[in-house]
């Protein structure tokens, strides 16, 4: 082999001896510096998160009591009362929002991934992307305007809050469901088609069960995302002190608005009100954490290993 005619760049020079070529102190120092910087950046990113959880826990625990979970604030002027109406309200409003968003979101994802083609699909994807960026107050005002068309101004209902939250939740469900459906390998669909299965049945009986764990996780994360939205609920569900679990009649309290209210108008017994606000915030964080943990457990239990 003619090596004389080939000029090597200095970077490709072979070291005289491999044993003597070990990483010099310069490179090791650089490695260590980068490790420290990266770990430091991670610690920096963790600080606000940890301090937040710490603060909310520290200030929220004094507000927690049996009364907090079992009593509402009906007729309460003093220190007593609880937030059971807010907790039930959050669960009901979020539940109805999920009931609206999940079918629409999953069917939308199925359309975009399995049926959509060409211009219509691109247009729909564009609109879904736009919807993920809608400010939450805009969603709230939309729900307000929609219901005021039918029921007149000043209407406040639990289901209005659900509709506003759905507007925020649907694009999130569509996006994550679409990603999960894309992961289902095409050869499974082909296996079903080759057996003479119609397309819709392939989707219902093969694609969706295979994607099930991912779909559930995506939905739970979407719920965790909207469970603490305050702005749309401020304008749609109203403020009320008594328990109401019917989303279709009357105002409904929820944890986010409750916390806001207690903090803004604490009344005479300031400290008790502040305590209750923090306790409501702590409860919200606990709900979000429970949903995330449940999502992970469901995923681990139901995921299908696709070879």
């Amino acid at each position, binding site marked *: 082999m003619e090596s004389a005619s080939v000029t090597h760049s200095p970077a490709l020079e072979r070291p005289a001896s491999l044993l003597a070529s070990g990483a010099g102190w310069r490179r090791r120092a650089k490695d260590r510096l980068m490790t420290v910087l990266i770990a430091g950046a991670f610690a920096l990113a963790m600080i606000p998160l940890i301090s937040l959880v710490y603060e909310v826990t520290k200030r929220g625990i004094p507000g927690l009591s049996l009364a907090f979970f079992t009593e509402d604030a009906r007729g309460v002027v003093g220190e007593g009362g609880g937030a059971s109406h807010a907790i039930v309200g959050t669960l009901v409003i979020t539940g109805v929002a999920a009931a609206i968003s999940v079918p629409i979101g999953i069917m939308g994802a199925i359309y975009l991934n399995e049926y959509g*083609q060409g211009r219509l699909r691109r247009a729909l994807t564009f609109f879904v992307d736009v919807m993920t960026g809608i400010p939450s107050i805009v969603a709230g005002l939309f729900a307000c305007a929609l219901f005021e068309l039918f029921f007149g101004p000043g209407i406040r209902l639990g289901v209005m809050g659900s509709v506003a939250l759905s507007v925020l939740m649907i694009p999130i469900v569509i996006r994550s469901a679409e990603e999960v459906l894309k992961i289902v*390998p095409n*050869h*499974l669909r*082909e*296996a*079903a*088609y*080759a*057996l*003479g*299965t*119609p397309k819709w*049945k*392939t989707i219902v*009986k*093969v694609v969706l*069960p*295979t994607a*099930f764990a991912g779909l559930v996780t995506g939905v739970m994360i979407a719920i965790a995302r909207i469970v603490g939205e305050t702005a749309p609920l401020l304008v749609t569900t109203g403020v009320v002190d008594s328990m109401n679990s019917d989303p279709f009649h009357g105002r409904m309290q929820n944890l986010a608005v409750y916390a806001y209210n207690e903090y803004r108008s604490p009344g005479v017994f300031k400290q008790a009100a502040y305590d209750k606000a923090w306790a409501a915030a702590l409860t919200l964080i606990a709900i979000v954490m429970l949903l995330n943990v449940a999502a992970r457990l469901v995923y681990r239990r139901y995921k*299908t*290993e*696709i*070879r």
Partner: protein
Amino acid sequence: MLGAATKRSAAEEGKPTMTGRPAGRTSTEPVTATGRGAKTIEARDVNLFYGDFHAVEDVTMTIAPNKVTALIGSSGCGKTTFLRSLNRMHELTPGARVDGHVSLDGEDIYGKGVDPVEVRRLIGMVFQQPNPFPTMSIYDNVAAGLNLNSRRVPKSQKDSVVERSLRGANLWEEVKDRLDKPGSGLSGGQQQRLCIARAIAVEPEVLLMDEPCSALDPLATLAIEDLISELKNRYTIVIVTHNMQQAARASDVTAFFNLDATGKPGHLVEVGATNEIFTNPTQKQTEDYVSGRFG
């Protein structure tokens, strides 16, 4: 020319072998004669396109019933594309188009008003990579054809169909005690036999196989080839294979596809009895290919 290719005699079937092949159907159990019976496929002037790209040109051939027809040729010459046009899977690719005439037992499968889903029920397919449904048990995988085809079948009938199909695929003895376990827990060769069982459970008239052994080890390949020679008694079989020795061993009729150059459409060069194609081909291209001079 091809001294390596061996043809097993009929006397060897059923005897335990030294190679330790998985013992399938014992020789005392007869092949049950159920099913619709094997049918003929006629292809006439078939041209296949992916969008504007002309992939396969002017294929005319007859696929005879109760015979194994092998499609051979080098990579990219259109064998799989042509195979997929026989059960209307080609058109599932966006932009794909079929020109020409393909008929099953005299009926045009691309005719107006023909439901492709019905065609695929009659012409089954087994793929290169075994693809059992991961969310279903072995039992449900085999019965998938029944479950997914909106036929309400009573359980007892389903049980007998599953058993018959697994016996037909030489898998029954190995899985009869774990029918409720997931299909993905089997070895590659077992998975492919499961896919074959799944395909024959719906009683097709033709079975198409796209390189069914290319992802399997030699022992598993042997088991599948034995299976194919049993199955041809009940079905018409078309198999695409890269492996010339396999075509020589396992098929009755061989069709050789070739490309003139990359970018040109693939076309059928020659089709005939396997013996003739491998020992006495009429086209020079065929002779070059089967003697290993290219491809």
